[in-house]
């Protein structure tokens, strides 16, 4: 590669699509991750922890049943089953009668919420405008350890899993600008995570480096993500679960339940490279060349972790 980023091993969109997504992800498997309801059922069958599903709304006629679904819950989340990038997700902190308080503290009237649900069912947030379903699920009580580095919303962890091997990870921290969402292109902070130990190393906001959270001012580097081993193991198991060779696994950390798998992505974004200040390509190629395919998930995790410690292995950890 002639370019500077080529020498750094940056994976570009064309290469990701042509050499990884199209080659390792069978089109017929996409519905497993594109429809979050299917993903959730699959995860439950495979013993992968996920936020509890209270129920789903399939048609506008089901909308009134939302009240029954959440009658016992103080807080809950509604999200489009086919949404992408966190669009269309509403987090309800508490509700009484016909009033719903979002996690941002504003009040939604029932009519407003119902309108949002109707639009979602009509396909506003799904690719191509196809009719969609709405998931009503448990609202994650995120672990307070991330409190200093989050503004509203739930921080989540993205792990890129290639052929079942977790190769790169980052922590996504919501900001005021991202409106409590953990999406980097909406202004969330991304922090690279040392794949072996689960320690954050470096942060970006947009395309720029940052060492502290823009809203809270807390340091981003050096955070130790709890349950890291468990998270890697969940991520690795998603490979067997879906059969997708190139996968983005999104996890959250619940205060009581530990790591939960939130959703999967068959075309995970490339900003994770900026957050880690490292290109994906050397790691992907290393796995292509050296990995033993028949390993069990735990062994795959152990193998990756051993590489990071083994200077002679030639693994670039960035």
């Amino acid at each position, binding site marked *: 590669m002639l*370019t500077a*980023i080529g020498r*750094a091993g940056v994976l*570009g969109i064309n290469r990701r699509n042509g050499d990884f997504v199209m080659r390792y992800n069978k089109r017929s498997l996409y519905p497993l991750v594109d429809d979050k309801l299917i993903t959730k059922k699959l995860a439950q069958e495979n013993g992968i922890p996920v936020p509890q599903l209270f129920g789903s709304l399939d048609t506008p006629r089901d909308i009134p049943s939302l009240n029954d679904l959440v009658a016992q819950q103080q807080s809950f989340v509604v999200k489009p089953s086919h949404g992408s990038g966190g669009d269309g997700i509403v987090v309800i902190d508490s509700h009484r009668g016909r009033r719903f308080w979002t996690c941002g503290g504003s009040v939604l009237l029932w*009519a407003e919420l119902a309108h949002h649900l109707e639009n979602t069912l009509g396909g506003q947030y799904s690719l191509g405008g196809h009719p969609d379903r709405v998931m009503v699920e448990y609202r994650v009580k995120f672990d307070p350890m991330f409190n200093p580095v989050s503004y509203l919303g739930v921080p989540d962890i993205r792990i890129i899993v290639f052929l079942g091997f977790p190769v790169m990870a980052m922590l996504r921290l919501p900001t005021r600008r991202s409106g409590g969402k953990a999406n980097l292109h*909406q202004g969330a902070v991304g922090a690279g995570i040392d794949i072996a130990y689960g320690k954050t190393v470096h942060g970006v906001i947009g*395309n720029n480096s940052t060492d502290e959270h823009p809203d809270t001012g807390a340091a981003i580097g050096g955070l130790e993500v709890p349950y890291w081993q468990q998270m890697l193991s969940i991520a690795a198991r998603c490979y067997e679960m879906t059969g997708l060779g190139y996968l983005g696994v999104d996890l959250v950390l619940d205060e009581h339940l530990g790591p939960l798998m939130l959703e999967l992505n068959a075309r995970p974004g490339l900003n994770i490279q*900026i957050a880690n200040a490292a*290109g994906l390509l050397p790691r992907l190629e290393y796995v292509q060349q050296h990995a033993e395919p028949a390993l069990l998930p735990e062994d795959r995790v152990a193998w990756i972790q051993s590489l990071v410690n083994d200077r002679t292995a030639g693994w670039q950890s960035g």
Partner: protein
Amino acid sequence: MNRRHLYALSALLIASGLSVAIYKHRVLGYPLLPEESASLWSIEGHLTFERHTVGPVKARLKLPHDPPGFRILREDFVSRGYGLTTEIVDDERIAMWAVRRANGQQSLYYRATVYRDRAAGELPAQPPFPEALELEPPFNEALAALLDTVRAESADVATFVSALLKRLSLPAADTNAQLLSTLATDDFERAQLAVTLLTGARIPARVVQVVQLLNSPHTVDARPWLAIHNGNEWLFFDPVSGASGLESNLLLWSWDSAPLYEVDGGIGEKLEIAVSARTEDALSLAERRATARDSAAVQYSLFQLPIPTQAVYEVLLMIPIGAIVIVFMRNFVGVKTFGTFLPVLVALAFRESRLISGVLLFALLVSAGLAVRFYLERLRLLLVPRLAAILTVVVLLMLFFSLLFHRLGIDTGLSVALFPMVIMTMVIERMSIVWDERGPMEAIKGGLGTLVVAMLAYVVMGIDVLEHLVFVFPELLLPLLAGFLLAGRYTGYRLSELARFRALGGPAK
């Protein structure tokens, strides 16, 4: 993994597309550039004579027969009351008119349309070497002496002939040439003398007749020209100047020096040859040529389609050209647009409305539509009825702008039909969702990207040469297809990624 397959397929597509196009251009003469014109020459031979008493008449006229450097596109004869036959006698093609009873002034016409084609023409077979000849006493010695001088000055047949002709045209310099040139008084005789002298040197030569193709109001005469055979091929010389070659505007009419016409039973016969140049669209010439050859290219040519259908294809064939712009801007540059091929449709709309007014209209419609969309948002409409409402508003806005511009006397030349209103509605809807979800920055970025790519596609699709090429050579879309296949395997960086990942390229290592 299927790379070899892909390359083979692409090579096949490129080769087949290009070879058909090259065949059509080189052999059938389809022009590569628009408005390329070919020179057509109209030649009219007008043979007149009189007959004072009623009686039979026979007239013979030599016709050009596969002249070198020209092709005869069509020819016709006008001869009222005469029977006409054409026959080929000794490399000559002759038209023979005959009538049993003729009286008074008679007119016979021969008309031919010819065009220049370097490769055309059939030359007579190699003639036998002539016998050595004997001239009258003083001339025989002069001939031998002249031939010796000229031979000493020349290297081969061509230079020999040139040198000989030069000596004859400037006889003052050489007493032998001076003596010999007294034998000839006009150009025909001079040419004949040259042939005689060349026969003395045992070089086969003949006087031929050429007509100069000049666009002039005057009639032209057949001129003598010299054709000699050097053992390999025929060479041509101007018998007066000695210059070699047959200029591109000389049409070889007859392979001998005998008069072009002959009339039995008439008097005062006269042949007037008139020449006029006619430029014709090279394209229609090529079509006619291909028709004359019964080529498959013309049977499957777009020009065989009804004109309205042709007009549609003129637009449709440009869409892949617009797609090049899309592929380039998206996969190589990395510009974000709304919808994949939406910019091409917008560009097609610009074709009707011209760029400036098209861009203005696009901006006006999108911003007005967005305002309406945000207003409708407050009414909490369901998705599909809301889209229908925006569509209706877009149509009304369009109508409003048309009426407004008309009132203001601005002729925007808007073709309402082609402005893709449904597409515009989708742009507005997509843009407003992006606006809501990702903020105005992203929405405006996408809108501008769409507009810029559409403008670029418009400019590229408006290149006359490209338009002409894909319409005349639709097979060129095959190499284009190959290009898309290859672009589909481009896994390098997009230009925008160089900026996006800039931070990673810098200090590392």
